[in-house]
């Protein structure tokens, strides 16, 4: 950004004009997002049982094993999902970066498809295919093989669903990150006899790190607040934070605690969000 030369002429009026142009979206964001978040934060810091400021609700969360288990499961799911997501998406992105032709278009179209499938349909398809006596079981049964151990209602259910859901955005960002790898560099390395693995580790990977950071932080941001997939596909307990918060809010009728959980989730998100912001800011400067 600093490299941008401000064209002569309108330079002086830029300050107010810029603010004016962003005013409406910023107002909407402040009114319907920032404001409720702040008021929620106030509610959790001044619980109705306490006379004034109190961290009691947070204390209760962090001293409750059950809540901590749920938090742990959420972190575990985030970690495993991110790893699998990278393992799936990096080869796809590499392929899409360098390949051309009808086959590449086909692969690209399929890789983008999940972006247009809402979670609820995904959950539905998941149960029909991988669920008990679903398609996979039916086929295995017809071949005379044993049934699979269905991931439906286990911790792997949400993982598979979330990976599926996040493939398009991950592939997109990684592909664009690979745009930073110049073809001549690869050609040159290949000409001197570099093997694909060496090529990947020494030439490609160093240039991908920032996109990988972006992908991971963005995914985790989404996973923490994910609700539909963990709720429909996951086990009853431990729960991921999304369904847990919902249950605390409506079934246990404890909105204060639910808001506390939400704030804690947001704390983690901000942590990962900072990674994200840093890598984005770095890329913006380039």
């Amino acid at each position, binding site marked *: 950004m600093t490299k941008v030369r401000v064209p002569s002429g309108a330079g002086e009026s830029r300050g107010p004009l810029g603010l004016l142009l962003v005013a409406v979206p910023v*107002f909407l964001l402040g*009114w319907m997002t920032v*404001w*409720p978040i702040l*008021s929620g934060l*106030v*509610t959790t810091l*001044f*619980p*109705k049982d306490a006379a004034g400021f109190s961290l009691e609700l947070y204390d209760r969360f962090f001293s409750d094993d*059950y809540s901590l*288990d749920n938090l742990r499961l959420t972190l575990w799911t985030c970690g495993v999902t991110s790893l699998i997501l990278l393992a799936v998406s990096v080869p796809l992105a590499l392929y899409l970066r360098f390949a051309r032709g009808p086959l590449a278009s086909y692969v690209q179209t399929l890789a983008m498809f999940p972006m247009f499938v809402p979670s609820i349909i995904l959950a539905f398809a998941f149960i029909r295919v991988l*669920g*008990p*006596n679903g398609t996979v079981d039916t086929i295995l049964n017809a071949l005379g093989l044993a049934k699979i*151990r*269905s991931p*439906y*209602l*286990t*911790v*792997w259910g949400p993982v598979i669903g979330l990976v599926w859901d996040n493939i398009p955005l991950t592939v997109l960002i990684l592909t664009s990150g690979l745009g930073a790898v110049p073809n001549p560099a690869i050609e040159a390395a290949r000409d001197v006899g570099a093997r694909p693995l060496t090529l990947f580790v020494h030439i490609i990977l160093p240039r991908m790190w920032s996109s990988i950071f972006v992908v991971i932080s963005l995914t985790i941001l989404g996973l923490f607040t994910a609700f539909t997939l963990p*709720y*429909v596909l996951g*086990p*009853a*307990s*431990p*729960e991921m934070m999304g369904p847990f918060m919902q*249950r605390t*809010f*409506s*079934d*246990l*009728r404890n*909105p*204060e605690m639910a808001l506390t959980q939400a704030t804690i989730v947001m704390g983690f998100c901000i942590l990962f969000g900072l990674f994200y912001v840093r890598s984005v800011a770095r890329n913006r400067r380039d």
Partner: protein
Amino acid sequence: MLRRHFMLSVAGSAVGMLVLPKVAFAEAGTIDWYTNSDTNILDFWTNTVAPKFEVANPGLKLNIVDAGDGMDAITQRALAALETKTDPKADFIEQGDPLSPKGAMEAGLYANLKDSLSNWSKVNPLGIETDFAVPYRGSQVLLAFDGTKVTPEDAPKTFEDLVKWIKANPGQFIYNRPDKGGSGGNFVRRVIHEVNGRDPSKFTVENFTPEYAEKMLAPAWELLKDLAPSLFEGGAYTGGNTPSIQLLSQSAVTMIPAWSDMALQNIANGVLPETTGITQLTDLAFCGGFARSVVFANGANRDAAIKLADFVLTEEIQSAIISELGGFPGVAWDYVSADLRQKYQAVVPSSIPTFPGGDWGSAINDGWYRNVAPNVDRNA
């Protein structure tokens, strides 16, 4: 906290006032009616209750809304409307709990039906919990099983039999999470009855204390934990009444607890094969439950909604609940037509064990999540 919330939302609205035109909006005479019950109830209202009510009360209409999992959001919205003295855009809830959200009943969110309904005196006293909800239909949980694998003679007759059967047939039984539907919820309640001498009278709305609940529920958790390894997938629990029925219809499991009306209707429409069998325990039946309707006191169509609540207690609707829905009436049996009474009274017990809601419900659900659900090693 209420006041602070109020101040915050007033401030938020004040900001909005500046930029938004005020939109006048009200549809007089249309009752906004919500349910989170399963489809059979929705169909019953759409095809039977609503037309009859609209004929009997010209000028009034029902707007039937299936809330699914979104019922709580609507109740919360109504509570927010109460605090801000605005129209909640909701009048009647087919199956509500006036004890939820906490403090809402005291704050005046629900209309007092005991004082407003002319038919209140007909209501089956067993079903009454508060003056703010009218029990209008009952249903019972029973066991539904795959008749090709279990003959009716071999089906469990007592709870002890059921435990034996579950353990002898690992992976063939599943119940849903108790907060996600009454079939699993009442299975869990039956276990609570079992470990407390099969005496439903030990549990009332008034006698709840956290300590008492802890003492009464703890042995039930032990029994359920003991059962868990023999359940489907070594301890999986579905997310509702319907998913359990789907597992049974896919032959993934052999036996489930199910609502009587849902089981019968799904056999009738072919979702469950004709070979599906149903049975009830004879030592103590599974808990039944009454669906209790509530009316929001701050709804724009409050009076019409109260008329509707009165209407569902009439003999016409109560008889339809028995004959069309396969449920049992919310009124005492004396107030249904004589031939129906004779035909069904032998089949349907005149009283079914029930379990109080409110704090007990929360204690059971949360206790189950904390004690039963996690203690399962599923090689995760």
